[in-house]
């Protein structure tokens, strides 16, 4: 199958690659561009571990056709920190011990980041809603919810 050229910005850098027309964004990021932040958990849009931001909107990379991202801004958990400075959400996840195996963490952080960008002072219910598509099998969710609520009140949380 002929491959198609594809260009987008990934975590602030211009990237270009060739993809199969049927490739999803998850495989393209992971196998094509070496960003292993988004994970494969189901390939069906049911677990949230592949959550990325496309033009600021949370999307499931496993259900997103790569070619639909031409010219877009893609952001993943790998690009969340500003150099050595962690995003307030990353600090809060550490502070609240909100990861155990860590496999759902990049997707959780990305879903939370999208929430706080739109709604800097979310209620607990809004946090729950924002991560309701992200499955965590380890933590029981409580530390994740607490971390997101804490980050919302931290200075600099509105940074997207």
């Amino acid at each position, binding site marked *: 199958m002929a491959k198609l050229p594809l260009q987008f910005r990934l975590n602030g850098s211009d990237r270009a690659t060739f993809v199969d027309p*049927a490739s999803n964004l998850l495989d393209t990021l*992971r*196998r094509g561009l*070496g960003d*292993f*932040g988004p*994970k*494969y*958990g*189901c*390939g*069906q849009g*049911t*677990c949230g*571990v592949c959550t990325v931001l496309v033009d600021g909107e949370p999307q499931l990379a496993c259900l997103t056709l790569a070619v639909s991202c031409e010219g877009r801004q893609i952001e*993943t*958990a*790998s690009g*969340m*920190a500003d150099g050595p400075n*962690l995003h307030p959400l*990353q600090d809060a*996840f*550490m502070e609240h*011990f909100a*990861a*155990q*195996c*860590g*496999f*759902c*963490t*990049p997707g959780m*952080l990305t879903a939370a980041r999208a929430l706080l960008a739109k709604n800097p002072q979310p209620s607990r219910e809004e946090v729950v809603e924002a991560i309701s598509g992200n*499955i*965590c*099998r*380890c933590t*029981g969710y*409580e*530390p994740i919810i607490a971390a997101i609520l804490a980050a919302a009140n931290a200075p600099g949380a509105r940074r997207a």
Partner: protein
Amino acid sequence: MTTMEMRKDLFADERDDNLNVVGKGVQRQDMPGHVTARTRFFDDHAFDGMLHLKVVRSPHHHARIRAIDTSAAERAPGVKRVLRGADVPVNKNTLLSLINFGKDDEPSLAVNKVAYKGEPVVAILADSEAQAQAARKLVRIDYDPLPAVFDVEETLKAGAPVVNETYPGNYFEYHERFDHQKLRFGDVERGFAGADIVMEHRYQMSPIEHAPTETNGSIAAPEQNGRYVVHSCAQGLFFALGTTAKIVDVESNQLHFIGGTVGGGFGGKVDSLTEPLAVLGAMLTGRPVRFVLDREEEMLYGSPRGAERIYIKDGLMRDGRIVARHIRSYFDAGAYTRLSSYAAIKCTAHVPGPYWIPNVASDIYVSYTNRCPSTAMRGFGVTAVDFALEVQMDRLAEAANMDPMEFRILNAYRDGDMKPHRRAAKNTALVECVQVAAEKANWPLSEQAKRASSLLGGGAGERSQIPATQLDARGQIGRPDSRNGPVTQVLPAGTTRIAPSKQPVMEGARDGRAAPTQVPRYEPQRPAAPPPPAYQPAPPPYQPPGSYSPAPVHQPASPLPASPPPAAPAQTQHGAVRFSSVFGTRRR
């Protein structure tokens, strides 16, 4: 909202709390990697020219394989190799063969028959996952369906379809003698006969899918010098390495396993589901091979926690004492053994739960059925029986007209109590857990229950004794008619047959390298040991709350049993200890 508090006041005299970093809530070493997405899991490794492996699975629960035709799949776009059972060097294994427990019973790729829906028959290696998936549909397998059995008790009856030819009775064979593992302590029948109330109930634990967010998988790639690197999600790195080396028939130093960072396991990543075929594929193609289960495969064929059916029969006195308990339980192993044989032993040691009961027996079966083989999961061998035991305890408390907390404290095991597997309990703390949970939940306890202690009343009189025990030869292998056999022998009180536990073997302690500082050993600080208590036939009668009577006379804790002799010279043989004498299953 969750909160946790530490009760440092309890057992304080048994601890030195002046430690530098142990006991401190310092940050996890892996947390910075997790929050920056820099943590690397097995699948987060790039290889040029990587092939993708997918298996063709049985659509039948049980069927003979008449013919396999892979010619069309071999010609399909992107397909580099198709594997069948004949390509697997050692196509029969059982996981615990690494410790010589059980007979090899499970193929990597089925050859003559399939024993469960989803059993792998053919493996396809292709340039892309999509190509491997497309080629799967081109494999033609001619099946002759066989009758299937799904119930753990039905499968043990005469005439049931044979699920697993290695164990033709559809049960795991214990000690080359019995179709189940026995536990016998005292005389449960006499206990039931003398009880005020006898109660029996049936409990059923569901199977459970581990559902780790990271599915099972591995990547194997040729390294230099004839070695293969394997990025693995295994919960036991050397377990997976040893299993793979055996199945692909290479020396263990030809395999270089890398792992240790796993996206959830809960027991579901002990089975080496993907590593052997990934390595075999890499050996046969010279290319890196990635074998990852998709979510549906993980859900359906990623080996669940096995279901268990449990029957509990108890003899209860009106004052709340349990005087006899018999447990009969069936582990659903699915079609192959994997780790179920071990769980039954663990379950046997757990009976009768954290309580002291004078007469206890159990019969734990591992049954083969035509479903996906089950495996370990968090609480393996214990979770299901705890569910059954604790619901039964709730029923018993109600029958004795007692508060459930008080009932637990009355029957709780304490330091020095003899457990049915014939070793004294030590370091117990059930009573204190019940007391603290009651306090925090604002669940009132009687003064008597509040004063109870794990340190008091245990090991007194018959509580420390091994009673005369009735033996039987029920359930002899291949003789279903023996299941209701008579008592064959009465073991005199105090009889033990297994050498006492050895001390832990620590190399440093043995050769002096670790001396003079030994591994910290925290022995409870006890008051000067009182003389052995006079024989006391039973604990003081229980006073239900409401009719409170003066504090009972607690028997002082009996002295701890004498320390075991110094460690015997440690096992120096390289590799696994032979278990054959333990489980009666010869290998090699």
